[in-house]
């Protein structure tokens, strides 16, 4: 009985951590960018302040929207939360079964489906533009994600994230394909969460946006939910990348949690560095970068099966 | 009884010729047809039906073809009064007697055991159908009649030549020269070989012309294109079957003489040629009646192909004889109705028959599905039997060609039929014609027979076809 209780407790802690930390990640990214630009930058907890502010504001819905517009942010948050429950830490994930990697990827697809639908519901040209771009580019990102998962699955001989990210003892010949997979997943991470090479998070020129323009018409708690969902998605994907990069042996849970947080910090800093160093790609070149990510992970598969 | 089958229609023909009233004369047709059908059924039930000392005898083959001609004539006779009432401007003083004379001669062909007498009967049908074709009395029907008459007569002359060659074959072999079918079959093995083959070729071309096999089919599009519905049905259904009967008699003699292989190769070749010609000339055909003529050429080809394949193919061909006759009845009569309603035979002016003539249009479409061998209808059964016989008896190439030809004909014909039946009917110039009971009921009757033959082949008919097949396909 004792073991189930501690297990349940660690699951609750796991979910709580995954639900609370994401805005902090955004704070770290913004601070690294500010440091690069020689600015002081917003406080680390700015994310939480925004969420609280938005939660208290009133909301305005345009005449052309329907209930789907309100459902957009809700589905975004729900799917990201469930995906969070799938990511293992210290060898254990609150929710895991054979084949949950496919569910993990499809949950993000569901979130995306409703976000795009909500954008189209407003009936504005900009939202339509963002929706079209998001739908096309994410379609190109999906194969890269799946190739990465397949490489991990092939090594762990199972399609469950828990088995994939905690096997730890990868044969030396697999390191080459793992490096490729990490690179590919990092690109997918940037593409999915509207980071610099694909989309500038804090630009205000709607014509260039992809993600921000889709949540243009949301206000108040709905906008809060949308932003929170996006940050949770970033956090979860980053956790997966870290899970591959730092395979902590089964040791104590504390050690793996510390490794995860350190990893996340490193990923946040990396994102900040990439955003400060690179400029936004021209929209025409985005597909070629995504295809490059697909080729990287596909090449990983071919290397593996040698 | 056998004599009655020929004499009764002749008496009615004479009566019709004498009867003055234009209105009551057509009613003679159904009466005579009913009488003829009754006699036929009685003849089928009784064992041996003979007359004039063996000159007229109903053998197994005749027992199959006679009911076909009789049923088809009965259906046409029900259709005729309604149709002729619509054509008051044309006098039927020549039309009705010729129809009755046509029926008499058909019965004579089926029953005559003497090949010379049979020839006389076939020539008589040619002459009887000339005025029938000429019913419309316009420039086009003159041309059609002239072509029909001339090619028909030349063909028949060749048939007479072939008959004499056959008799000479017997003379050459030192036997008595008798043109009786039973004698020739008995003497067949001893007939002199080259005369027998030459005779079969001439007879095949002669009676093939009457059937409309390619390359002797050239009169069909003209004749069927211009003939009224009834005449088209009788020519395509009854006359073709009788000519096929004559052909089978000679095939029987040649098979008994041991030359079946040569005859079957000739038949397969001509059968496939006829189907090919039909397929080719049906593409982009603008006149739906001429299209029916090519469909008749195709089905005559199938009949001969079935015999050529042999084995179960013979059963298939004879069953197809029945199916083809009845289906052609449906197609020609419904095409006749559509022609009456729209006043034109070209596809460009005839659209939306389903909307304007719901019954005739639907029957025409159903007839198209039947004639191209779709399962719920009769012809599918016989064509499937022929295809199966071809494949199982090692003639896979013939079977494959057969199926391909069916597909080509389907596409060629489908385009025309759908153009006629579907769509919105153009503003009609002649309000007169609507679907009426007496012009639609006979077609529905024939269609019911086609569907029945597709689903359940009644035992007596099956016995008739089996006996006929046994009669034809003798194992040398």
């Amino acid at each position, binding site marked *: 009985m004792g073991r189930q209780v501690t297990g349940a407790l660690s699951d609750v802690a796991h979910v709580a951590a995954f639900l609370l930390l994401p805005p902090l990640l955004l704070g770290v990214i913004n601070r690294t960018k500010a440091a690069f630009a020689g600015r002081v930058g917003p406080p680390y907890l700015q994310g939480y302040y925004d969420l609280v502010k938005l939660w208290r504001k009133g*909301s*305005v819905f345009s005449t052309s929207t329907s209930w789907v517009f309100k459902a957009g942010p809700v589905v975004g948050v729900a799917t990201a939360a469930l995906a969070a429950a799938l990511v293992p830490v210290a060898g254990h994930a609150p929710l895991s079964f054979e084949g949950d990697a496919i*569910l993990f990827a499809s949950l993000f697809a*569901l979130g995306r489906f409703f976000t795009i639908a909500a954008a189209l519901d407003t*009936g504005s040209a900009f939202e339509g533009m963002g929706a079209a771009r998001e739908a096309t580019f994410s379609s190109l990102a999906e194969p890269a994600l799946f190739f990465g998962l397949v490489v991990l699955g092939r090594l762990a001989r199972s399609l469950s994230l828990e088995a994939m990210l905690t096997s730890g003892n990868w044969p030396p010949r697999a390191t080459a394909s793992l490096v490729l997979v990490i690179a590919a997943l990092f690109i997918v991470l940037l593409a999915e969460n509207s980071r610099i090479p694909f989309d500038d998070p804090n630009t205000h020129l709607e014509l260039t946006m992809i993600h921000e323009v889709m949540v243009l018409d949301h206000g108040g708690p709905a906008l809060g939910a949308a932003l929170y969902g996006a940050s949770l998605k970033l956090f979860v994907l980053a956790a997966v990348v870290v899970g591959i990069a730092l395979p902590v042996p089964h040791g104590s849970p504390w050690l793996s949690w510390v490794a995860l947080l350190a990893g996340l910090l490193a990923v946040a800093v990396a994102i900040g560095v990439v955003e400060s160093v690179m400029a936004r790609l021209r929209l025409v070149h985005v597909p070629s970068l995504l295809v490059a990510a697909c080729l990287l992970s596909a090449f990983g598969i071919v290397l593996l099966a040698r | 009884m056998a004599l009655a089958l020929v004499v009764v229609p002749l008496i009615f023909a004479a009566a019709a010729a004498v009867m003055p009233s234009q209105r009551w004369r057509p009613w003679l047709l159904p009466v005579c047809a009913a009488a003829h059908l009754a006699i036929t059924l009685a003849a089928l039930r009784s064992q041996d039906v003979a007359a004039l000392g063996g000159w007229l005898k109903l053998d197994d083959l005749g027992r199959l073809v006679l009911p076909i001609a009789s049923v088809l004539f009965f259906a046409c006779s029900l259709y005729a009064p309604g149709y002729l009432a619509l054509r008051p401007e044309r006098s039927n003083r020549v039309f009705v007697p010729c129809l009755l004379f046509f029926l008499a001669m058909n019965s004579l062909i089926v029953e005559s055991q003497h090949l010379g007498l049979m020839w006389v009967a076939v020539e008589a049908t040619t002459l009887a159908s000339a005025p029938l074709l000429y019913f419309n009395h316009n420039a086009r029907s003159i041309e059609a009649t002239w072509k029909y008459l001339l090619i028909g007569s030349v063909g028949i002359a060749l048939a007479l030549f072939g008959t004499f060659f056959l008799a000479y074959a017997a003379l050459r072999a030192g036997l008595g020269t008798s043109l009786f079918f039973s004698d020739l079959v008995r003497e067949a093995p001893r007939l002199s070989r080259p005369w027998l083959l030459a005779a079969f070729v001439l007879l095949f071309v002669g009676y093939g012309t009457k059937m409309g096999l390619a390359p002797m089919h050239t009169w069909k*599009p003209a004749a069927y294109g211009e003939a009224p519905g009834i005449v088209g049905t009788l020519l395509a259904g009854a006359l073709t079957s009788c000519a096929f009967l004559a052909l089978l008699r000679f095939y029987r003699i040649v098979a008994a003489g041991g030359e079946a292989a040569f005859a079957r190769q*000739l038949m397969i070749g001509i059968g496939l040629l006829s189907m090919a010609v039909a397929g080719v000339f049906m593409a982009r055909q603008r006149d739906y009646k001429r299209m029916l003529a090519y469909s008749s050429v195709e089905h005559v080809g199938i009949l001969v192909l079935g015999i050529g394949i042999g084995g179960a193919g013979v059963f298939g061909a004879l069953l197809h004889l029945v199916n083809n006759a009845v289906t052609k009845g449906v197609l020609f009569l419904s095409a006749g109705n559509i022609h009456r309603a729209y006043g034109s035979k070209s596809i460009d002016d005839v659209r939306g028959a*389903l909307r304007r003539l719901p019954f005739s249009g639907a029957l025409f479409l159903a007839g198209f599905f039947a004639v191209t061998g779709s399962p719920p209808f009769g012809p599918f059964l016989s064509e499937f039997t022929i295809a199966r016989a071809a*494949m199982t008896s090692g003639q896979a190439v013939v079977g494959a060609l057969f*199926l391909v030809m069916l597909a080509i004909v389907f596409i060629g014909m489908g385009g025309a039929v759908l153009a006629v039946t579907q769509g919105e009917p153009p503003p009609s110039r002649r309000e007169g014609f609507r679907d009426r009971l007496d012009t639609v009921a006979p077609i529905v009757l024939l269609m019911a027979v086609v569907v029945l033959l597709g689903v359940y082949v009644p035992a007596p008919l099956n016995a008739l076809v089996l006996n006929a097949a046994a009669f034809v396909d003798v194992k040398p």
Partner: protein
Amino acid sequence: MTFLVASLAVLAGSGLIAAVLSRWSRLSTAAGAAGAVVGCALALRPALAALLGEEFVSRWRWTPPYGELAIGLDRLSAFFLVPVLVLAAVAALYGRSYLLAGKRRPLGPHALFFNLLVASMVLVLVARESMVLLVGWEAMSLTSFLLVTFEHERAEVRRAGWIYLVAGQMGAIALIAFLVLLIGHAGATDFAAFQHMARPDPWLAAVLAALALMACGVKAGLVPLHLWLPEAHAAAPSHISALMSGALIKIGLYGLLRALTFLPPAPWWGPALIVLGFIGAAFGISQALAQRDLKRALAYSSIENVGLILVGLGIAYWGIALRAPAVAALGALAAGFHLWSHVFMKGLLFLCAGSVLHGAGTRNLEALGGLARRMPWTAAMLLFGAVAIAGLPPLNGFVGEWLVLRGLFAAAMARGGAPAIAAMLGIGALALIAALAALCFVRLVGIALLGNARSEDAERAHESPAGLLGPMLVLAAGCAALSLRPAIALAPVASFAGQLFGAQVAAQVHALSPALTTLGSISTAVVAMLIVLGAALAARVSRPAAAPPTWDCGYAAPSARMQYTASSFAQLATSTIVPPALAPRPVVEKPRGLFPAPAAFRSEGADLVAARWYEAFFARWADRFARLRWLQEVALQAYLFYVLLMVVAALAWSSLRGWAGK
């Protein structure tokens, strides 16, 4: 057995009654619909019993050309029969109110053909003898042709009907050739004889497999033979497209499976089916993106889903070839589950499309928009169906997708080397196809239901009557049941896989039941979470301060024309992802001359181009035939010359034979 015959009799009888009462539309459609529902119910009972193992075959003698007829139900037939019957009953009810609400025209014949179509589908599924199969198969083609051309006053309906008829006939000719060759080899026309016949030598088996693939491929819509599918679905009334897409296509797959049971299993079947499946899926979805007609997009999506099912079947056969029952079980479960759920999903979507057509008067996406507010129920169900068919988690489409991906992965694990790499790359390709499917359906939903109405018809759209919504709800409930309880489909798939692939595979299928139950519970969890969060957010924003038009960056007078249209939404995808050969091709007629002459811009889907290729082929041959026409148009004398030629040729040949013979 008596239930089956009773069901066929009820279907045929009620159809005839409906045809006779054709003048009183309400009465005849009521008779037709009631007959269809009762007929389907009667047939459902033996079908469900057969699924649980109560199989039977009954034979009786028929007139000679038929020989001995046999019908029977085994698990394979029952597995296909159950969804077909459910969809047929629902479509019949929907059809009645759909047609009564439509243009005034005699509905009797339509009800007759509908019931005959259902009867012929049942006949095909229960046929145990080649003649019965052929009669059922062709009757199915004919009746569905007559149903597709219900509104044959429109030119494109006639064209669609003609293409469908020709395709059906080509398939029928291939089926006749297949059966005749089999009969020739097995010596009898009965399926039992086919099963126990001597092993045909390899080349005959290959020819038979090719013929079976062509005959059933036409009906199932495999890619090179799919041409009739989008045309027929766009032209047919919606409940007919639902029935065709849901049931008719599946019967094509049934025919393929039944044919493969007769032949000795060859190792190349698995990979071949997988490749065919991928081609179909990729082609289908790449075309569905670019369609501006709602029903044509759904039709292409059917081609994609048939592709997925084929991939599942391919995995199953590959698993058998690799002697890995676990892989085969995954493939069979993927194919079986996705087949059942596709019947419900696609049926629902087509009925929704019918409801949209009824409410908004048009199927052209460019003229729709804002239907969510004006037709809430239809919009909700269309959205529900779209999420399901796009393979997104809480609903049953995802379960099928999940199983296919796991099947591919298991196949990759079972064998090393090149096939493993191919399978793993296949997973990525399937992910791309799934993503494009999501894009296609978010486009359909976003453009048709959301935003502002793009035309007066859409502006005046009204919700459909209960007669239409009821059947749609039934199908939606079916989808929901399969999503929340996927395990209910496990037993039928296990029995179906048991017959096709053996007991070991059936056991493995049952072993997968815990995985399905977890998936079901997760779906319920997702739904629960959505409801909770939705309620929380709704409570928070209960009193919206004001309801202005969309902000649109301060533009004062937003109009419906500013919205993204269907083609602009898909333009980015078709220009980057879809290869140029398959992308829609703009057809521009530039204005010529000084004064503005009529100019036009049209963008044609790749399939229209393929259709033109077929038409060009037939036209070329028709021209060649027409050029032979002079043979008939010559003078009378030439005709006589033909006869003379024939006589001389035949005489020469006979005398040659005579000498050779002597």
